[in-house]
């Protein structure tokens, strides 16, 4: 049995011949498409390391079956930078030292991109901490993560303002 699934991954249309209905989006990305930037930390939606954007929304890719995603637009950490130019969230994570081991980082960054896009974060650090709490960082880089989200948000708003002007 093989299912044909159409996905757009990081802007590229892909047709996936899915030989097994049990495959999650996370395992598809990591084990079958060589997109290993997205990480598996718990495989049950508890840690956030596998966060990607599907149709612009943040999801835990370990909890999504590929078979249910026909036609979806998927963005992963690999699709964030524009060539060598880092996305403002990526640059802010480096500057604020928002990671140590780096394993949860792709998920943290995709979460941050999602929540900034959703317009939920505001400039309130307390609110950012709450909204980033679906992503566990065992190294304890939370202070840097919060700073990075606030800074990236500001940079992106300024850029948007400049473009509008």
């Amino acid at each position: 049995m093989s299912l044909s699934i159409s996905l757009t991954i990081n802007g590229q249309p892909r047709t996936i011949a899915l030989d097994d209905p049990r495959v999650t989006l996370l395992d598809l990305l990591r084990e079958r498409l060589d997109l290993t930037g997205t990480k598996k930390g718990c495989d049950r939606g508890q840690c956030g390391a596998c966060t990607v954007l599907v149709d612009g929304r943040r999801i835990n890719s370990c909890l999504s079956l590929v078979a249910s995603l026909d036609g979806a637009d998927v963005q992963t950490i690999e699709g964030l930078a524009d060539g060598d130019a880092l996305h403002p969230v990526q640059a802010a994570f480096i500057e604020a030292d928002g990671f140590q081991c780096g394993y949860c980082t792709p998920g943290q960054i995709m979460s941050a991109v999602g929540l900034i896009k959703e317009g939920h974060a505001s400039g309130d650090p307390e609110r950012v901490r709450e909204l980033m709490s679906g992503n566990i960082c065992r190294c304890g880089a939370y202070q840097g993560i919060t700073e990075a989200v606030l800074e990236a948000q500001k940079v992106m708003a300024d850029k948007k303002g400049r473009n509008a002007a």
Partner: protein
Amino acid sequence: MSLDAPSTNARYGSNAGQPLTRRDGVLKVTGRATYAADNHPDGMLYAVTAVSRIARGRVTSLDVEATKAHPGVVEVMTPASRPPLAHDPDEKMPPFGFRIEVLQDSTVRYANQPIALVIAETLEAATEGAALLNPQYDADEPRTGIDDGLRFDPPAVGVGGPPKAAFGDVEAGLAKAAQVLERDYVTPAQYHNAMEPHAVVAEWDGDHVMLDMPNQALAMSCASYATYFGIPPENVTIRSPFLGGGFGSKAIINGPQILAILAARALKRPVKLVLSRAQMYGPVGHRGGTWQKLRIGLNNDGQLTALHHKSISATSSFDDFLEPAANASTHLYASPALLSEHEGIRLDTGTPGPMRAPGEASGSAALEVAIDEAADACGMDPLDFRLHNYAETEPGSGRPFSSKALRECYAEGAKRFGWAGRPLASRQMRDKNGFLVGWGMGTALFPCPHFPAEARATLRADGTALVETAGADMGQGAWTALAQIAAEALGLDPEQVELHSGISTLPDGGIAGGSGHTASAGLALNNAGKDAIAQLSELATNDPASPLFGAGNIGVEARAGRLYRRDDETRSESYAEILARAGRREIVGTAKASRDPAAAEAHAMFSHGAVFAEVKVDPDLGQIRVTRLVGAFAAGRIINPRLVESQYFGGMIWGVSFALHEEAIIDHRTGRIMNADLAEYHVPINADIPSLEAILIPENDPFVNAIGVKGVGEIGITGTVGAIANAIWHATGVRVRKFPVRLEDIIG
């Protein structure tokens, strides 16, 4: 901390002390940093372990046929079919070797022990195949509580540490005390829970094996794997550029990884094994629980007359790693009589192992609360009490400290926190919402171990350098800090220094553990760099065509890619010029470095710190929030303040976790852990963490090693746990002596 301020630790012309961003930053934010499980050699198979649901007994049957019948399953490894190993897994392998469970028989020694390995063409098939094994058991009563386990006197605690330290006469000291405090403290079993599960991708080529795995001790692990597989150590290559967190759990060989490597050899195909989160609660180590007792004698002046710290530390039924908790009391507060001792208790769990600040974390948690209780008993401010009992020399031994800027930590931390004016009694402060507010503090302390390490520094014809040492960047920022150290030794900018690391074929970088990696590998790189510069100086000063001719080796100084005459700054030559004229493509400096044994013998070597915490407690619900945390730490010379601040933050967050969150909860009827996942085994999330402040107290240590570096990775936990528990008492008047502190302890 302002990252723009020049560090007082900076040396002239040196990059060290500068807050450079991480060298691996771009790789890590773009998803291009390669962790073990990201590897996918051609023809790779997937292995999944099946684990025991009972904690003690034996497996009586496995439905291997059902598993083999599942499409995609290639092989099932059970005790009946497991290929032989060249080393008996029930024999310990020194120095860090443990007995491991690799299907040697059908015995079950703890819940979550591997009982079979299923290998399949896909991850999905291997996972389902493992679920089809339908194991049957002959179960015995599990022994997982303090009253169930066999007690014993351990020959050693931690990794070969002394189980007992005694100075002076503790009983006499207690007898003459004006008052004696006797208190019991309990700390739970905790699991490392690195974000990256333990993984291996194993690929054999004849009798050579390539292992992609997260590993904190490359050279030591190569030797261990070689012994298990009966091949020379040089036939084992481990690639471990990054670890997704180690915290001690990735320094020691474990059973599941051995089984996957065996499967790869037997099936002649690469095999990948990644543990599930739940499977990390068993065969890969944990922090064993402790039951601690402290007895403190106090005179009328608020000084200690005796300090007795005993820990009953849990280990497994079949091997020993005892949390050396009581040893935390032997280096910190002055007391004419000191006794620290341990007793072991055997439980049906996996064998514990080192977990971030092994011993110091659990021991400091109890000690710092006990000291707070002692201060209260004497009617003294907790900071004044600690200063009153300050150890000018190492308690017991009387040795001088190699450096100890703890007074400065106390002073600076207290100032930044605003400690002055803290009411002595509990339940005195409320915020505008009516929450109870409390302030507490704790002293932080961690030793400075040093591991032998090797490095190579190659000066290249273009004046740049390649430096090499085999270590992993597990988040501490090794690639960055080590390159800074090497650049300083080589007189180059860090951008001119390429660092190769993370593979076992490079010179042995020692162990990334014990907070000793930067000091150990750093000293090796420093010495290798100096060796290269010495050879270069030799070339130049002996060459009549060089402006440095005749200066002699010590007559020149390396700076900004040039050698300068010390007595005449106008005479200098670039590295590239010297190499070109000598017709040399490169100069290779090497070093094997360890600590000077005489300095180690003569001094007590520790990092110190002081942590101040504010908590707010809901008076009706008992809900506890840490609202402020300030730590001031002195840890020798700081190579990169940005990275060091992050290490302190991480340690302090582990302290929050120890105080309020982490605990493996065991169902004593089944011996199984009931919360073996990241939703129910609580670790702090972003919303749990208030604004943190870490203050880097300057400290010059001429004895600890030639680069003056101590360690920063673990000290942040110590002190923080006590500070939070003490703040909870100050807020509520309730003294909780069992960790983690829960709201029912407050309202109960």
